[in-house]
């Protein structure tokens, strides 16, 4: 049982052993540790960037807001974490152990995700205006000054990522018009108009736009393989459906093909409880892992044929990434657990288990990024 609020004093002495000296993060060095990053919180509801080393140390770097998605710059390994929607801030983790915070522009709300341009010079952020119309904000990736914005060609863009060509931006337009009250709760009368959109990141030109036959399915998260295969994780707004039939929650878009739903037994979709939270593609094995925190499951599909491979249970699992050598899927949950899953057998490598008594992992996992210490 999670008893850390009673036992933290015993453990507090060991959680601050991690040094962040010697950044930048992405520079691999002799004796480097691997560090995993996520939005996180502690048991006193402090929010920030959670960092966890492969040696088992963890700590929370407070940002003052609950974070969501993280991305790493391709040139020098700087990490940016965006606030959970409706977000007002983003945070960059600096090499000198400082945080640089930047604010959303008036009349806009951050939507929890961002990505860098291929050269690391620009930062693209998913944003909305009050009506829910989507924007892709463009900032100088070094000082976060505002450079402009594009349309997302849809409502409520959520996760965005750069395609392997380094030019095309993939956008998951969630389609949920948020309420004016809290900026989150979707209006029950609002139609979901979710779409997967590809734009040219140089000029904002629309390249492709795809939607799904189920208009109550919200396309929210995505990952992209080096060959351009893209997998999206969906969330179905069951409260707007008048039936209890299962709905597919994962879709794939292979290069030059339309977006199509992956298949699984109906009872498996039902067990996932209409909610997939995060996705990662293992390019070496052509396998996608998709997490369902409500279903307490990670589900794996082979991508060339779209075949369901299996599933792995973990309570409240959401974060998923690949290990440094791509020898494991790595998943995290809100209890502070980290599990390593063999991508072939889909079995857990139990000796690698990690647990933080002090930090709760939030939705998304970034890493590992080696740090010389």
């Amino acid at each position, binding site marked *: 049982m999670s*008893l850390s609020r009673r036992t933290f004093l015993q453990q507090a002495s060991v959680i601050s052993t991690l040094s962040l000296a010697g950044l930048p993060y992405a520079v691999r060095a002799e004796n480097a540790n691997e560090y995993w990053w996520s939005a996180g919180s502690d048991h006193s509801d402090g929010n920030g960037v959670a960092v966890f080393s492969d040696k088992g140390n963890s700590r929370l770097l407070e940002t003052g807001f609950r974070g969501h998605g993280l991305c790493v710059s391709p040139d020098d390994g700087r990490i940016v974490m965006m606030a959970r929607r409706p977000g007002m801030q983003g945070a960059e983790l600096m090499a000198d152990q400082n945080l640089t915070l930047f604010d959303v522009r008036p009349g806009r709300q951050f939507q929890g995700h961002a990505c860098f341009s291929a050269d690391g010079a620009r930062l693209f952020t998913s944003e909305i205006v009050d009506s829910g119309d989507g924007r892709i904000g463009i900032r100088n990736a070094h000082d976060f000054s505002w450079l402009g914005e594009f349309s997302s060609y849809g409502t409520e863009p959520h996760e965005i990522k750069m395609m392997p060509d380094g030019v095309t931006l993939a956008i998951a337009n969630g389609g949920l018009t948020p309420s004016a009250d809290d900026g989150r709760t979707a209006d029950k009368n609002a139609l979901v108009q979710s779409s997967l959109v590809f734009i040219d990141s140089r000029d904002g030109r629309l390249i492709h736009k795809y939607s799904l036959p189920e208009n109550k399915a919200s396309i929210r998260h995505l990952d992209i393989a080096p060959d351009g295969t893209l997998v999206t994780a969906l969330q179905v707004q069951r409260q707007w459906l008048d039936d209890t039939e299962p709905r597919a929650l994962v879709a794939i878009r292979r290069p030059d093909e339309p977006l199509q739903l992956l298949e699984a037994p109906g009872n498996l979709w039902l067990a996932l409880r209409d*909610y997939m939270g995060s996705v990662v593609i293992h390019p070496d094995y052509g396998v996608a892992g998709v997490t369902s925190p409500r279903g307490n499951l990670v589900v794996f599909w082979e991508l060339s044929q779209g075949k369901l491979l299996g599933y792995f249970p973990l309570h409240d699992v959401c974060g998923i990434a690949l290990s440094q050598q791509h020898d494991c899927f790595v998943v995290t949950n809100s209890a502070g657990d980290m599990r390593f899953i063999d991508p072939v057998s889909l079995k857990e490598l139990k000796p690698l288990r990690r647990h933080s008594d002090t930090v709760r992992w939030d939705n998304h996992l970034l890493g590992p990024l080696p740090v010389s210490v």
Partner: protein
Amino acid sequence: MMREKNYTLSTSVCAALVFTAFLGLSGCGGERQNDEPVLTDATLATALRQVTDNSIVPAVDTFAQASSSMSADIEAFCSDISADSLTQVQDGWRTLAQAWYRVSPYLFGPVNDDVVFPDYLYIDSLRQRGNNYLATVRTDISTMVEGAFELDGSYFSTKEFNKVGILALEVALFETRSGLPSNDDLLTEYRDEPRKCDVIRGLNNIVAGYSSNMQTEWTTDYQNTGTSYRDLFLAGDTEDGSEPLTLLLTRAQEHLDYLKQRSVSSVAATVSGETWVLMQATLEAVEAIVAGTGNSGVSFYQLMNSAGQSTAVTTVQENFARAYEAIRDKNTTDFNTACALLDGNFKRDIPDALAVQLGINFSDGD
């Protein structure tokens, strides 16, 4: 600058520590039998063990025994079709259904060991998102009675989950194939259609198989590990790595959510008219998790009180009282409201008072 988190004690833990200190000052000689237990890792583990041994395992045992008794009742009825033997087998079903509803807040471990087709669906198809397969079951019973194929174990072993379980048994035992509810008509039908006895034998054998397996796995050997699930559970060796108390509270909360979301009190056991008896049984099972039983030395209520959370205890008790009142009034709206309140209690108030983390509760759109 980056700020390190300064950890602070939560109110409940402070209260527990203050209370502990008070006991330390006033105890003068240690723990007495009537001392209020203090919230510690050890007392939480004790309370969990007592819920397991006094509520969960006995519920599983009772369900298995009820199913076994049903087998005997069915044999007695089919060998001597009479008003008395029909009443007996109907009472047997009532006992079986109540026993199941006392197990159903604990849908983890042996009863839920397959993601796609968990065992519990073959006992209670309503658990699949509240889908009511009454029409499917009625059609299938007629197909079996009218058919010429053999109604043996091989046939029943391939039945889909939505054609078996306590719902199928209920339909077969409480109404005729044309939907007549009188026992006189039922007796006539059973006398005229001997295959219907084969139907209830086969259906009960399925439930008996699952209930027996559930009992064995909880008490003796879970999935050929050589260890009972009871022992694995209490040792924290759960399927998805959940802490056992987290698992128990989460499943109870999901059960309350299921009762409310699927308006179970308006669709369950409508053929037999046992709906509210089953709601009473399942609420009592949920309440036993926090209130304990007569055999409990330490209950979660007591631990919540000791942590200074008596207001939370009172709130939960009031919501249970509200649910029981709705059951007495047979008021679905009020019952669903009470279940929603209890759902919130199991999601927030109880874990918070016990300093147990259930999870972040990820929201739509994240």
